[in-house]
Each structure stands twice: as structure tokens, then as C-alpha cells.
């Protein structure tokens, strides 16, 4: 069975203090790895999709990277508005449009 593990569960950073969130996965074949941001009381918001090891994508202060077993979401010089729960999800290869399997998320708090 697919497994997606995110660490740490929660992370508190000072404003401007860079760090990384981890998403490790075990699937027989990876079609795509997705990162989402979820604010309290809202649904997840799509950030990135990565497809192959070595791929990187950036958006403002966020950069996502992918290896064969894990993905990292690097946050550089974060601001308080970056506080949210960050979810990763994997889509396994298959004959159809396979559903996403989500991790439990990392709750990020940026302290001014």
C-alpha cells in the first residue's frame, strides 16, 4: 500500500529563518508528487507538481525538489503569511487517472 510520510509534524520559525519540510513516499511507480498549502478553515491550494527525480520548481519563497524516495519543500526567508499546513500527495502510475494519496501535513508557523 502507498505510504506518504511528512516531517516534522509542526515547525516554528522566526521570520527570515529558512528551513525545509520533508515528504517521503513508497510507491511502486510515481506518476507525480504534489504539494499543497492549506490555511485554517479552507481547502488545500495547489502549489507544485514534480514528476521525476532531480526536478525542481520554485514559487516566490518556496522551492520543491524531488528524489527517488522523497521530496523537500524549501522555504527561504519566510514571512508570517507563509504560516499554513503544507500537504504533499503522491499519484501512483496506473492505467487510469490514479487518485492522490496525501500525507498528514506539516504545520508551519512563522513568528514575526
Amino acid at each position, binding site marked *: 500500500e502507498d505510504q*506518504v510520510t511528512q516531517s516534522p509534524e509542526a515547525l516554528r520559525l522566526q521570520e527570515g529563518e529558512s528551513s525545509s519540510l520533508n515528504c517521503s513516499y513508497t510507491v511502486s511507480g510515481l506518476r*507525480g508528487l*504534489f504539494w499543497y498549502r492549506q490555511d485554517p*478553515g*479552507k*481547502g*488545500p*491550494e*495547489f502549489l507544485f*507538481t514534480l514528476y521525476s527525480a532531480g526536478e525542481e520548481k520554485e514559487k516566490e519563497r518556496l522551492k520543491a525538489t524531488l528524489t527517488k524516495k522523497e521530496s523537500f519543500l524549501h522555504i527561504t526567508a519566510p514571512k508570517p503569511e507563509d504560516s499554513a499546513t503544507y*500537504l504533499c*500527495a503522491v*499519484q501512483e502510475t496506473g492505467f*487510469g*487517472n490514479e*487518485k*492522490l494519496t*496525501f*500525507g*498528514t*501535513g506539516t504545520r508551519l508557523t512563522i513568528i514575526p
Partner: protein
Amino acid sequence: EAGVAQSPRYKIIEKRQSVAFWCNPISGHATLYWYQQILGQGPKLLIQFQNNGVVDDSQLPKDRFSAERLKGVDSTLKIQPAKLEDSAVYLCASSFDGSYLEQYFGPGTRLTVT
């Protein structure tokens, strides 16, 4: 562009009662998804519709959960009878063509079963 609409936003019921949630997707989106997100967990897909047909309902507890999308637009998810473990946020999402790259989520309905 209007987003995915859900109602109600909050619902409290007693166990063994029934409840229904409504979702209106983004206009023109053929694919509609219902997810269950238990506190501290990631969303879990319950059912996926393409227009008014079911694509995937493998994780829907069919003995108590049902969903319909009769006209291929809005959808209703029902739980009857509810159990304590059904307490969760129920998220609706939609996409134009079934692509997870263009999947937009609604704000969710928070269900508490007492």
C-alpha cells in the same frame, strides 16, 4: 471566477442521525470530487464523478455514505446513519477535465458527530 461552493459550513448531529452536504463546482468543470479530512490527517478521496457518472468510489463506505450528481453539475453527499468516527471536514473539489493539476477545493463542511 467563482470558486467551489459548499454548504453548510458547519454541522453538529448526534450519532445515528443523517446528514447531507451540498457542493456546487466551478462552472464548466466536468469532474467533481468528495474528500474526507479527519483532524490531523490529509484528505482522503471518497468519490469522483465525471459529469454525472462515478469514476472512483472505492474508498466510499457504501453501507452508510451515498453521493449523487444527477445533472452533472452540483452534488450531494449523504451519511445515514452517522457514526462518531465520521467527524471530519468534508471537502468538495472540481477540475475541468479530471486533471489533478487543475483541481480546486471548496472551503469544506466541518461535521461533528456527538
